[in-house]
């Protein structure tokens, strides 16, 4: 018994570094990013006393004296003008009129010579439950505001979900663009990668090794270096345009950089190994005599391919496509260097929120959207691959 438990203890101890690493560098950052997306402390931080008192309020009756006293205390204690501005903006978006009401109230509270008795004496509007309701809602530490904004949605004053005005709606366009570029890259990888894997799998010896090395070599090179290399190749006076012009195939340089074409070319090259390797690994497990068998049964080469080789390698194609697509939707450096302003993907926006404007809530929310999309795709893939019969 003790031997068993000590053995179990030892295996846990051996696993501990891995588990701690995973928790520290994967689970915890992921959870904190997700919690950033839904947490909203802007109002709660400034109005701690009101938060306590408002929990007892029935959300319908006119404000009680303790409620008014608590809010007055809270507002007097605020010394961070920027935080106050954030809170007012937040409340005003939930209930219009809050901006004027707040500035009037804070001005009255600052008047130490003639302190107001209560809030209603400053402005009659403090009698209305609606304004208190807005505060009560804003005090909740959780919000779906960022998540909704990530897909260009917001709540209006009555709390219904609606589209944000067009001038604030940019995320959805970029999300669609991200998925579209990822789909283009996945398609290009499949079209190039499948025949490549087929040829590699049909060869033997050094020829096969050479083809696999050619795929693996880019994987061992830094992403930045590869992107920079494409930068050199694709530019107007780059190798490709120079060569095509020298050969007389084109008169003017092709626009290959700072546009969608360049982004797709560079990303396809970078992600190709993730397509080739899964397909290759499936292809080499397919018995070599199936294609000759199909031919002997009367199947011309292309029909044998469609009926035998393709269905059998679909699993590799699916996992390759999934890998490429998931990697592609998170791409940041390549579109930033090779793409134009119309080719920026969602990661650039996340980076902007996280580093440019320190809006961790929005960065987290967009991250969550990306994560959900990935998980959805994966679950579809898992369903497809297990639902297929005849697999061992």
């Amino acid at each position, binding site marked *: 018994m003790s031997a068993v438990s000590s053995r179990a203890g030892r295996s846990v101890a051996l696993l501990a570094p891995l588990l701690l690493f995973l928790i520290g560098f994967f689970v915890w950052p992921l959870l904190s990013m997700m919690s950033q997306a839904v947490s909203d402390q802007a109002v709660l931080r400034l109005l701690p006393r009101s938060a306590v008192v408002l929990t007892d309020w029935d959300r319908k009756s006119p404000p009680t004296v303790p409620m008014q006293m608590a809010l007055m205390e809270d507002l007097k204690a605020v010394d961070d003008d920027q935080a106050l501005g954030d809170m007012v903006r937040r409340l005003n978006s939930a209930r219009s009129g809050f901006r004027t009401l707040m500035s009037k109230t804070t001005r009255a509270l600052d008047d130490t010579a003639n302190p107001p008795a209560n809030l209603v004496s400053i402005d009659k509007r403090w009698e209305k439950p609606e304004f208190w309701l807005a505060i009560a809602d804003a005090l909740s530490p959780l919000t779906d505001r960022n998540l909704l904004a990530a897909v260009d949605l917001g709540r209006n004053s009555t709390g219904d979900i609606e589209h944000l005005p067009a001038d604030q709606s940019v995320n959805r366009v970029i999300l669609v663009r991200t998925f579209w570029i990822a789909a283009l890259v996945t398609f290009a990888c499949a079209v190039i990668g499948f025949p490549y894997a087929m040829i590699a799998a049909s060869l033997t010896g050094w020829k096969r090794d050479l083809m696999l090395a050619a795929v693996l070599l880019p994987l061992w090179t830094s992403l930045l270096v590869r992107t920079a290399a494409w930068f050199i190749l694709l530019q107007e006076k780059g190798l490709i345009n120079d060569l095509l012009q020298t050969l007389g195939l084109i008169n003017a340089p092709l626009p290959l950089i700072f546009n969608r074409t360049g982004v797709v070319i560079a990303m396809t090259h970078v992600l190709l190994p993730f397509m080739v390797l899964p397909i290759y690994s499936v292809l080499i497990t397919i018995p070599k005599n199936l294609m*000759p068998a*199909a*031919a*002997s*049964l*009367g199947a011309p080469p292309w029909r044998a391919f469609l009926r035998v080789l393709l269905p*059998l390698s679909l699993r590799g194609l699916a996992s390759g496509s999934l890998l490429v697509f998931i990697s592609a939707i998170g791409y940041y450096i390549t579109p930033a260097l090779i793409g134009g302003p119309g080719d920026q993907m969602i990661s650039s926006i996340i980076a902007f929120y996280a580093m440019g404007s320190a809006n961790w809530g929005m960065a987290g929310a967009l991250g969550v959207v990306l994560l959900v999309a990935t998980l959805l795709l994966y679950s579809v893939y898992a369903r497809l691959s297990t639902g297929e019969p*005849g697999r061992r």
Partner: protein
Amino acid sequence: MLFQMTHPSPLAMESSVAEFIQFDRITKFYGPLCVVENLVLGIGQGEFVSLLGPSGSGKTTLLMMLAGFEQPTSGNILLDGTAINDVPTHKRDMGVVFQSYALFPHMSVGENVAFPLQMRGLGKAEIVERVARALDMVQLSAFADRRPSQLSGGQQQRVALSRALVFEPRVVLMDEPLGALDKQLREQMQFDIRDLHRRLGLTIVFVTHDQSEALTMSDRVAVFNRGKIEQIGTPRQVYDEPATRFVAEFIGETNLVEGVVEAVQGQEAIVRLPSGAHIVSAGSGSLVSGQSVFLSIRPERVDLSETRGDARNCLETEVTDSVYQGDHLRVQLQNAAHPLIAKLGRRSREFPPGTKVYAAFSANDCRVIAP
């Protein structure tokens, strides 16, 4: 006739057979390696021909060239009088049964059998009907919806067989189709394939390295060695009248005894053994006096007795060992100059070691083989 059969030249043999498939001076190189050398072989319609030989003897390569998977380096393959070298596999109309079955794992048994019919663009109703008939033929109707991986090896091989036959190919090629099955199943399948061959009048080219399989199943056996056909003939011919030392040793068990031709008398030769004994043997062919040759004496043709009988050949020997093997008694003998093995029927009496016996056999029970 017997005289001719003793030293068959492949060309001479072929002229007597209606040639449905003809290999005309086929040579195949893999790089510098010659796997089939200037090979000539004719196969008649409805014939069951086995290509028998050790691995690497070129028999499978020949089959692959017939199927169209490989191209001969030189020479022509004719089917029904037409060269098919340039006809791609899928237009050759040959059913191939592979050693590893080569069933499509992502299709059900029924879909596998329907595949060649779909490739030929047959109507749905006809496909259903013919698939049902083909599966019924191999007693697998109940398994039509199963995956190949859910079947046993023998069942898979029967599916492969019915898939290769369902489109009524002109020729059925089998590449060691029974190699992966256990002994009992193999014998059952041998019987089934023979039965199908007879019932459907199929032309079958069957590759095997198992000599008993080749003898059991075929109309004719072609014995391969190093890219060449050593001998082709009926099972009885290749067994009883081996043309070369390789054939004698590869098919069945035999006693090979060196000797020198003393005289040739008609269709018989007199061979002097190193011990000084003289043996009268059939198969004189192109032998000349003074030529050193081998004698092949099948062990089961040797009779043992303690008295010198009236057999034409009789050797004085001593029993060195005697083993009871169920269906026969195997007796090891030592002559003055060479060992000899005799297989006796199970009704034979025991021969304890040390017994002096006479080993007797007729002139027709041994063959002279020029080395």
